[in-house]
């Protein structure tokens, strides 16, 4: 017997901050900071993101010859990089959150409905998840954006496609495994409606797994949004999105690297933090979810 067997097992208890590794704490701090900045964009941003100053174009950030007027420099139209980053962050994070929520809610509902109704609906839903697995959401999104045209609602719906099929499978699997258990039969025997059975009794069984799935999915949603915006198919100027800023900054790499690199850094660190947090959460809460 090795000594490690006698170590107390770490447990996830609310308030047990010590049990969280330093790395995860850093991730959470970063994510929290990004959330706060996104929420308070109007208050903390030094300038409006569209304010141009053509006399101050391509100013470098502090440390590369810049000054405190524009701590992160300016872009090709003399707009303050810091302000634009803050607003772009707000756009990207909001779209990713709304998209993740829509995807999670719709996917879960479809999965529940497929499991409860079975039959034709189930068949169609499962075929659709098969198609979604085979076809990356980027192509589906591009098809719609190309043929139907772009608007914000459409764009958010397309972004929410990322990963919906994973929620659907999770929810359907749970319904099928729990449907014939005595407690579901008992509750149905009490006269409970299907909605009550699903939301009061089935959903709580799966909520932890869904949260983990949403956390793991979030980076994918951000990447889908920023990729589309980068390609010029998503958020349109003069609005700012992290992907769009990067796409615009690409043209000035030689003279003004910061226009592209700064938003790229923000995206990368955010998705990295979310991925690490999601992995950690999965291992903590539900070691069986997400394994192939």
């Amino acid at each position: 017997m090795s000594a490690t067997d006698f170590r107390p097992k770490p447990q996830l208890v609310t308030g047990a901050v010590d049990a969280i590794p330093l790395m995860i704490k850093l991730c959470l701090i970063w994510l929290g900071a990004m959330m706060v900045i996104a929420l308070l964009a109007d208050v903390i941003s030094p300038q409006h993101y569209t304010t141009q100053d053509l006399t101050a174009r391509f100013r470098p950030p502090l440390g590369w010859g810049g000054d405190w007027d524009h701590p992160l420099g300016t872009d090709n139209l003399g707009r303050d990089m810091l302000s634009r980053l803050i607003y772009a962050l707000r756009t990207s994070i909001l779209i990713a959150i709304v998209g993740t929520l829509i995807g999670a809610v719709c996917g879960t509902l479809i999965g529940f409905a497929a499991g409860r109704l079975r039959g034709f609906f189930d068949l169609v839903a499962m075929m659709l998840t098969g198609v979604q697995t085979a076809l990356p959401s980027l192509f589906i999104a591009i098809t719609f954006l190309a043929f139907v045209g772009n608007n914000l609602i459409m764009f958010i719906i397309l972004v929410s496609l990322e990963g919906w099929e994973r929620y659907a499978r999770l929810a359907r699997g749970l319904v099928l495994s729990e449907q014939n258990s005595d407690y579901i039969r008992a509750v149905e025997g009490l006269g409970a409606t299907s909605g009550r059975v699903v939301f009061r009794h089935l959903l709580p069984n799966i909520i932890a797994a869904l949260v983990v799935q949403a956390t793991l999915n979030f980076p994918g949603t951000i990447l889908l949004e920023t990729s589309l915006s980068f390609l010029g198919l998503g958020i349109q100027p003069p609005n700012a999105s992290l992907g769009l800023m990067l796409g615009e900054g690409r043209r000035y790499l030689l003279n003004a690297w910061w226009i592209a690199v700064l938003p790229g850094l923000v995206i990368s660190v955010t998705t990295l933090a979310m991925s690490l947090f999601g992995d950690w959460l999965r291992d903590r809460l539900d070691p069986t979810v997400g394994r192939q």
Partner: protein
Amino acid sequence: MQSLIAIFFRFLRAVFTLMFCVTLVFVVLRTAGDPAEQLLPPETPPDVIQSYREAWGLDRPIFLQYALWLENVSRGDFGTSFASRRPVLDLVTETMPRTLLLGASALFVATLLGLTLGIAAALRRGTFTDQALMAGAVLGYSMPVFFLGILLILLFDLQLRILPSSSAKTLTHLILPTVTLALPLAGRVARFARTAMLEVMGRPFIRTAKAKGVGRLMVILRHALPNVAVPLLMFFGIEIGLVLSGAVVTETIFAWPGLGRLLVDSVAQRDLPVVQGVILMITAIIVLSNLLVDLLHAVIDPKVSMARTLGGGA
């Protein structure tokens, strides 16, 4: 017999997926508006549009139009690009090999790099090396492809001036796009390989081989690796789609004249016949490579493949 049934089901699913996507494009096209106006250049005179409408059978019932559409698509007739006035099929067949070259070289690099790092991490499980490698892997696939590409351009083209970053004139032009596309994939492969390797290394036959005094490298090459190959194959089946969507972005950054760049350019110019052709072609590539992986799997491991096919999930 079992593998035959499994193959049959896989085939059925591939056909369904393909049909679904073709139908989806048809439906999106029709709901978006009059295809004659959509697919013809904006400056086309009304009487020409009307004649095309009749030629394409747009005045006929919708299910006949659908049948006609299926027939055209199956003949590879996606229409004519109104940007270049060339048949879409020509444009697609011209650019596709470059995308396949990029994708294949990225897959190769990613597998080599990912497997090596993943196995190295598995063998040093729990050490700092393991943790660092895995953190690197997460970083690899968390970083957006377009940002990675831009960093590589900044470093190797603009700063060091040792590698070209635009167009596809020589083979050295392939290096930066390949690395850009391969790194995120390598991160995923490394994580996957580590998990698969740890699982295999825990099995009794590996322990027996070790106990018999077989050298470590031999254990890995002869016993562990072949057993990791099957799950890895399945993994690639899933990743093909992601490689292609990564290729769209990568090709755009490096001006690599492949399918992805054609797609993005066509969308920007609203050259819809080309968009439609590229999307269908990419769908076909994904579905066919998935089918190939499935068939290989069904042949190598009929029982498991069968269970996966009939068991519901994908």
